[in-house]
């Protein structure tokens, strides 16, 4: 059976109103004083035991940031952010544990509550249980997931590290990588997204506290899916992750990222940066399920999510694929992009963005074709409900030397109710006459008749919406690794609860 029905069964067990995962845990935090200054940055760098070049890089980014203006071109509105009213560093008081035994039991209990089994055995058991239920998404060979869990700013546990290091793969918190693999970090950090690329990337470069580092050596196929769960848990603490993934010639890696966050009143700033580098024949598949707290039904208290994600296909025949399911955040500002430098390189962007209540999402991608015969595919599914606004903003740029470049874009919007908005803003620039660019867009509505038809067969209204929405998103969901496809379908249904009727 395809996963949809399986999932809907599961979804029925989670039909609670409000944000399902709205809780906080009490672990003593060590918090930097509010505000951003060179001293804050020095403190962060010192806490992390960083070399001086890293501190210099941060300070330079900060100088850059001071000269920049917050962008205002996106179709989102929010009160002015006071950057001096934010804590830029928070860490659990205990020193970072060396093994799972050292992890705070309360933290492990929290992950249990979230359904994130940290223990290796639990992960394997969880994966196998899902695999039995589902034959559409066959389990990947050796369906292991390595989890690098981020709790606020410090990574608390890393599993599977040994097995990965046997394959020569480096997968660790970026702060460890800065200390242990400085030559790699120094070479690649900021090489795809320069510190001064935009306002939020500059801010992140100055104050990032954690995130993941992945290095796949030449010819290595990463033996497992890599997964990081990010979570915001300290009041008024902005979280600034920095992720860097490098796939050397012929390497392959699939990286999964997912977030849930506890309910709270204040708006929380989140500005992550993700950089990917793929060399000749390398492939990076980056999947995200984003479920930051979206705010209450009036939009109060949700996360502001300003993310810069970009991948460089530097090598010939390299491939970078972004898949995202965005259901959370009060504000989403996010354009995972591909720079297709290598000849015959391939960029893909598959996206589902759901907005409900007062949520605002302005998301899309940029495909920059530089090399010959480069190809890109964009499939974007936007779902708006409540009084939300959902904008697809995408750029396809064909540079003069990109002979034979091809792009296909499919942009679909689904409206639920009559008070929401869906907007499509495609930018297409072609400077090479041999390029082929296709753009298709549709807007549809879940019709009352369709809902009635489903209900007359015994489905509840919410199950019917879940079924129709999952059907609408099928083309994107099938791009997700199995573990995420199931989770994503749950999220879609949960985030649209109460959107009809």
């Amino acid at each position, binding site marked *: 059976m395809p996963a949809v*029905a399986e999932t809907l069964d599961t979804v029925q067990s989670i039909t609670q109103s409000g944000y399902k995962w709205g809780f906080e845990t009490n672990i003593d935090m060590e918090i930097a004083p509010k505000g951003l200054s060179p001293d804050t940055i020095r403190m962060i760098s010192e806490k992390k035991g960083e070399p001086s070049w890293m501190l210099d890089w941060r300070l330079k980014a900060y100088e850059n940031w001071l000269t920049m203006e917050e962008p205002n071109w996106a179709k989102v509105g929010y009160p002015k952010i006071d950057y001096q009213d934010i804590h830029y560093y928070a860490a659990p008081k205990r020193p970072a544990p060396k093994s799972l035994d050292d992890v705070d039991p309360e933290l492990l209990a929290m992950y249990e509550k979230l359904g994130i089994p940290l223990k290796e055995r639990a992960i394997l058991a969880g994966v196998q249980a899902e695999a039995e239920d589902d034959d559409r998404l066959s389990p990947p060979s050796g369906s292991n997931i390595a989890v690098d869990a981020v709790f606020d700013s410090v990574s608390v546990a890393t599993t599977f590290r040994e097995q990965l290091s046997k394959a020569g793969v480096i997968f660790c918190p970026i702060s460890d990588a800065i200390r242990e693999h400085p030559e790699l970090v120094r070479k690649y950090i900021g090489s795809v997204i320069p510190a001064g690329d935009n306002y939020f990337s500059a801010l992140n470069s100055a104050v990032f506290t954690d995130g993941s580092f992945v290095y796949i050596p030449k010819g290595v196929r990463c033996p497992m899916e890599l997964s990081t769960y990010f979570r915001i848990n300290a009041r008024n603490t902005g979280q600034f992750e920095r992720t860097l993934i490098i796939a050397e010639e012929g390497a392959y890696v699939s990286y999964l990222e997912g977030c849930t966050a506890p309910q709270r009143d204040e708006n929380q700033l989140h500005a992550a940066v993700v950089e990917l580098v793929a060399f000749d024949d390398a492939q990076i598949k980056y999947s995200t399920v984003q479920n930051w707290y979206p705010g209450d039904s009036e939009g109060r208290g949700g996360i502001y999510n300003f993310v810069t994600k970009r991948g460089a296909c530097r090598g010939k025949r390299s491939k970078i694929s972004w898949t995202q399911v965005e259901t959370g955040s009060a504000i989403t500002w996010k354009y995972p992009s591909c720079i297709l430098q290598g000849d015959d390189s391939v960029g893909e962007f598959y996206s589902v963005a759901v907005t409900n209540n007062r949520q605002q999402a302005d998301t899309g991608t940029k495909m920059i074709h530089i090399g010959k015969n480069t190809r890109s595919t964009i499939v974007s599914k936007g779902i708006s409900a409540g009084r939300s606004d959902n904008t697809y903003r995408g750029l396809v740029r064909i540079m003069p030397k990109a002979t034979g470049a091809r792009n296909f874009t499919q942009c679909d919007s689904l409206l639920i109710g009559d008070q929401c908005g869906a907007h499509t803003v495609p930018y297409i620039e072609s400077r090479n006459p041999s390029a082929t660019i296709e753009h298709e867009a549709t807007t549809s509505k879940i019709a009352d008749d369709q809902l009635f038809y489903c209900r007359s067969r*015994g489905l509840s209204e919410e199950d019917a919406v879940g079924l129709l929405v999952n059907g609408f998103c099928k083309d994107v969901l099938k791009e997700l690794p199995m573990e995420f496809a199931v989770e994503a379908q749950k999220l879609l249904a949960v985030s649209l609860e109460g959107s009809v009727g």
Partner: protein
Amino acid sequence: MLRIHALCASVEEKPILRGIDLELPAGQVHAIMGPNGSGKSTLGYVLAGNDGYAVTGGEVTFDGQNLLEMEPEERAAAGLFLAFQAPLELPGVNNANFLRTALNAVRRARGEDELDAPSFLRLARSESKRLQFPDDMLKRNVNVGFSGGEKKRNEVLQMAILRPKLAVLDETDSGLDIDALRVVADGVNALRRPEFSALVITHHQRLLDHLVPDRVHVLSKGRIVRSGGPELARELEANGYSQVVADAA
């Protein structure tokens, strides 16, 4: 099984049903016939609970329960099934998934165990084989790209799988060739049991050749103007509605 008393309903303030009285005992098949615009489809929608139709008076009891107070999905769980005249397309929703989700929702509501995927597929394949449907129909998206005949067959397949106590067939015969018509009639006949009833809304006598009704009711301007045995359908076919309606007036 079904008792309709003085049922009145309107669409956008316009009265369509003006006092329907009808009693459908368990185990019987009744036909509703009548000219276009007489309120036949409205009756089907009102029974299934479409909130685009406002009930302005009267009562409907189904199996002893007050039907009009129930949500559409509760009516389905209680055993009511409406075969749509124009079945809806559900893009991206796999037919087998849809059927299994529906069946399990209904089973849950009835306090029965859900069917797992393999048992469901066995059931769906055997039903679809019995109705002479190609297997790939289960794999396609619900009614998307189906021909008119295929959509009607799909309604019959859903009915066969959901096993209702009361089936309301809204012009399930329209647009069907003779062979397809027989398939639809066979599908309903296969369900005939002492505890199963059907209300067959149709324009034409020919479905009733295969699906012989116990009673035939003629609907005109929102009222049942005449009722009789199967011979009434043949009389209508021979003389036309206008004669029968005029006689009744």
